[in-house]
């Protein structure tokens, strides 16, 4: 029954992961046919995918792990984006690398401020309160001149590059002709220059953030914190009576989710260079939720797949863009009815396998006692 992959020795596994990550970095250079998006800049699409992945990972902590339904997640995203916009362009001219941490902290603080009073109310009330929060954030932005009201904020700082306008070095893309694959020397990406035309460096930035958050996610989930979240989700009263300070952990989940949401918002603002309240509609909260639920809440890989689908499909099939919300709505209903655990439900077995060996040892030692008992 042993899975081939999980049976591999650790260094091999790490090597495989590194290769996978390298491949993910190289995708926009390879421009593989079918996947590549005709008519839209592929690098830009991939950046969007990476941001959705980031957001979905963050929301998964709140919804999937801790079981708190957050319908206003876009609010944290907006706080991150607006903080960066204000600090780098509208009211100050900080460098981006300083503004993003501040934006992340601002999102986290707002998460705590929203969570501290509301996390005590029943779960489905929380959904409505967070929905209200997301809308309040947007309406405040619309109505406040200091935040650029409906006109939004322009000239948001770009990330600092290395090696100036031409970059350190330039990487050619692949060109897929009729049955041949060529290096396209006309089409190069500069490493590492964040310009306007070539979106690929932004994708690399987004992907790096996704990988970092993913690693953190794995480390946290496999610890007391992750178990406390799950126990709270499963049965809050029982968890409390087993010594889990549930409120504290719910707040922690909320703040962690807000952290990731703020980070995604900051990166988005920097790539876009321009934000206005239209970028933070309630619709996005629902799309993020769709990403998490479609993929399989609680399973980070499922969530990544869900996010990639939600971000990528509308770009690939632009002619159906009008039907995007309709299709996601349908997907939610159908999934809830047919497969409530999502496309890729959490796989418990992997962790279980790790213990198999240990169990065998234990069993040897207790065989006698077992017999005596029976």
């Amino acid at each position, binding site marked *: 029954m042993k899975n081939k992959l999980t049976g591999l020795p650790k260094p091999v596994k790490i090597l495989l992961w590194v290769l996978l990550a390298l491949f993910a970095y190289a995708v926009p250079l390879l421009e593989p046919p079918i996947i590549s998006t005709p008519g839209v800049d592929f690098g830009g699409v991939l950046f969007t995918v990476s941001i959705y992945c980031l957001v979905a990972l963050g929301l998964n902590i709140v919804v999937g792990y801790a*079981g708190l*339904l957050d*319908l206003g997640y876009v609010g944290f995203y907006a706080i991150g984006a607006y903080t960066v916009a204000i600090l780098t362009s509208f009211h100050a001219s900080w460098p981006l690398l300083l503004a993003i941490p501040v934006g992340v902290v601002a999102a986290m603080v707002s998460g705590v401020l929203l969570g501290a*009073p*509301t996390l005590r*109310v*029943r*779960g*489905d*009330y929380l*959904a*409505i*309160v967070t*929905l*209200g*929060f997301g*809308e*309040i954030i947007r*309406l*405040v932005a*619309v*109505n406040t001149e200091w935040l650029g009201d409906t006109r939004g904020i322009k000239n948001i700082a770009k990330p600092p590059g290395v090696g100036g306008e031409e970059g350190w070095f330039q990487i050619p893309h692949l060109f897929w002709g009729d049955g041949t694959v060529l290096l396209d020397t006309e089409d190069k990406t500069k490493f590492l220059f964040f310009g306007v035309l070539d979106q690929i460096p932004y994708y690399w930035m987004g992907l790096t953030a996704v990988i970092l958050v993913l690693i953190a996610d794995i480390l946290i989930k496999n610890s007391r914190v992750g178990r406390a979240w799950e126990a709270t989700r499963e049965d809050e009263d029982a968890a409390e009576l087993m010594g889990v300070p549930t409120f504290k952990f719910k707040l922690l989940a909320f703040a962690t989710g807000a952290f990731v949401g703020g980070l995604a918002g900051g990166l988005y603002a920097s790539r876009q260079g321009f934000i206005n309240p239209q970028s933070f509609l*309630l619709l996005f909260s*629902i799309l993020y*939720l769709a990403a998490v*639920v479609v993929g399989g809440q609680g399973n980070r890989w499922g969530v990544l797949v869900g996010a990639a689908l939600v971000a990528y499909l509308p770009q690939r099939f632009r002619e159906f863009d*009008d*039907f995007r*919300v*309709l299709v*996601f*709505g*349908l*997907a*939610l*209903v*159908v*999934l*809830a*009815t047919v497969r*409530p655990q999502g496309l890729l439900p959490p796989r418990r077995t992997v962790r279980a396998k790790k213990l198999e060996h240990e169990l065998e040892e234990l069993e040897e030692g207790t065989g006698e006692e077992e017999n005596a008992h029976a």
Partner: protein
Amino acid sequence: MNFEFLFNNLPELTITGLAFGAIYALVALGYTMVYGVLQLINFAHSEVFMYGTFAMLWTVMALNGAEADGVKLIAILIAALFAAMLMSAAIALILERVAYRPLIKRDAPRLIALISAIGASFVLAELMGLRDKVAEWLGLDDNLDDYVSGARINNSMAGVLEKPRFDVAGVSVSSIDLIVIVAAVGMMVLLDQFVRRSRLGKGIRATAQDPETASLMGVNPTRTIQVTFLIGGIMAGIAAFLYMLKIETTRFDVGFLLGVKAFTAAVLGGIGNLRGALLGGLILGVAENWGSALFGTEWRDVIAFVLLVLILLVRPTGLLGESLGKARA
């Protein structure tokens, strides 16, 4: 903050606020009853309302309400009222059948049911928003207009009704506001009596208290749930009718904000509590009107959300307490 404006216009602001509040209250009933019986937030109830507004609009348009007056206009409005009730009730029942029953049967977690409802809400709203394209698909594009005389594209029935105002003790009152308030409160009283006295109403209350025991006592739970959605739908239809009388314009996304406000009203009064819904709706309507006079109309929608958060913090069970089952009071 414009206190002067608020105080100078307090009676007028209060009456229009009550009219809005009455509409919120009628929609809130749908949330409150479903919550009372199923402990689920029927997120898609806002779309039940939205379809009602369109049914009303289409009926008036199709019957040429713009050119009618006197008895004929009243007949058209009555037809529109029934159309709205029918449409909303039908949507509510479809919703129950498609988005809820499969989940209730499986005893799915509440989170999943809420997600299903959110999905259904988006589908319903988008179908209305994309109705041109949907009509195109179905090949109805060309000849549909012949039947509905432009109703499909129209979002507004402005100018159909005259709205005479009259003075009561120096306060100018719109007749529509008065109709809205009286009709809504009347319906709520009727419903309250129905739930308290009729056999069906007792079934609803019994199921709300203890579904298992109720079903052992011969109450059919599926049927009770259907009736609950049906009543909620009819009330939303009436609300849609009154809303259109007052506002005259609708859109495919009109449901969302109104839905959130109606839900706020339900929570404010104590969710699951019918009289609470009325009280909560009226308070919210007035608070919103006063608030927008005070802070400016652009903050109108923020007020409802802030109020919602505050209530949940201070008194999560609402002003009159929860529970449909114990809805004696």
